[in-house]
C-alpha cells in the first residue's frame, strides 16, 4: 500500500501528534533515568511512555486515513491501553514479592504474608 498525497491540514495534525508523542516519550524516559527506585520509575514509564506511543498510533490513523492501515493503528491504541497497565501491575507485584523496598518511609498498608486484601470491618 503506497501512501497517498498528504494534504496540508492532515500534515499539520500528524506533525502535532508526532510532537506530542515525542514529548511524552522524552518525559517517560527521563523519569526512568532520574527517579529513585523501581516503583517510581514504573509510575513514570507505564503512563507517559504509553501515551507517547498511543499518540504515534493516532498520528498513523490520521496519516493513513480511515482504511486498512488506519484501523490497524486504532487497534494498536486499544491494545496499548489494555496491556500497559497490566504489565506495570505485574512488574510492581513481582518487585514487591522480591522484597524491593519502597523509597523513603512509605510502606505497604497490610502485611504481604496475608496475600489477600484484608476484609473491611
Amino acid at each position: 500500500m503506497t501512501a497517498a498525497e498528504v494534504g496540508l491540514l492532515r500534515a499539520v495534525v500528524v506533525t502535532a501528534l508526532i510532537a506530542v508523542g515525542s514529548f511524552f516519550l522524552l518525559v517517560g524516559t527521563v523519569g526512568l533515568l532520574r527517579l529513585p527506585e523501581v516503583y517510581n520509575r514504573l509510575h513514570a514509564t507505564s503512563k507517559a511512555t504509553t501515551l507517547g506511543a498511543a499518540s504515534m498510533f493516532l498520528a498513523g490513523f490520521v496519516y493513513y486515513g480511515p482504511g486498512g492501515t488506519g484501523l490497524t493503528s486504532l487497534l494498536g491504541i486499544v491494545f496499548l491501553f489494555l496491556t500497559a497497565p497490566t504489565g506495570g501491575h505485574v512488574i510492581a507485584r513481582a518487585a514487591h514479592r522480591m522484597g524491593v523496598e519502597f523509597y523513603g518511609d512509605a510502606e505497604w498498608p497490610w502485611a504481604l504474608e496475608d496475600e489477600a486484601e484484608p476484609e473491611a470491618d
Partner: protein
Amino acid sequence: MAAEAAAATGPAFLELAVQAGLLIASALTLLAGYRVVRGPTTPDRVVGLDTIGTNVVAIALLFSFATGFGPFVLVGLVLAIIGFISTITVANYVTEGDIVR
C-alpha cells in the same frame, strides 16, 4: 537513503517532524539501555526493557511515515504484543522461579 525514494509527497515540515521524531526516539532507546545495564534490581531492568519496547514501537511507526510503507504499522503492533508477553513472562519468572507451572 534508498527508502526515501518511495516517501509520501507531503509538506517539508512533515518530513522534518518525522526525522526529528526518529532522532528523539532512537536517542531515548539508547538512554533507556543505561537503566537496563545499571539497574540495581531485576525489576528495574524489566522496566527498562519495557520502555525500550515502547520506544521501538514508536520508531517503527515513524519509519512507516518516513517511507510511506503502511505495513510497518503492523510491525509496531506486533512489537507491542511481543513486549507485553515478554514482560509478563519475565515478571512471572522472577517471582515463581519457573515460567510454566
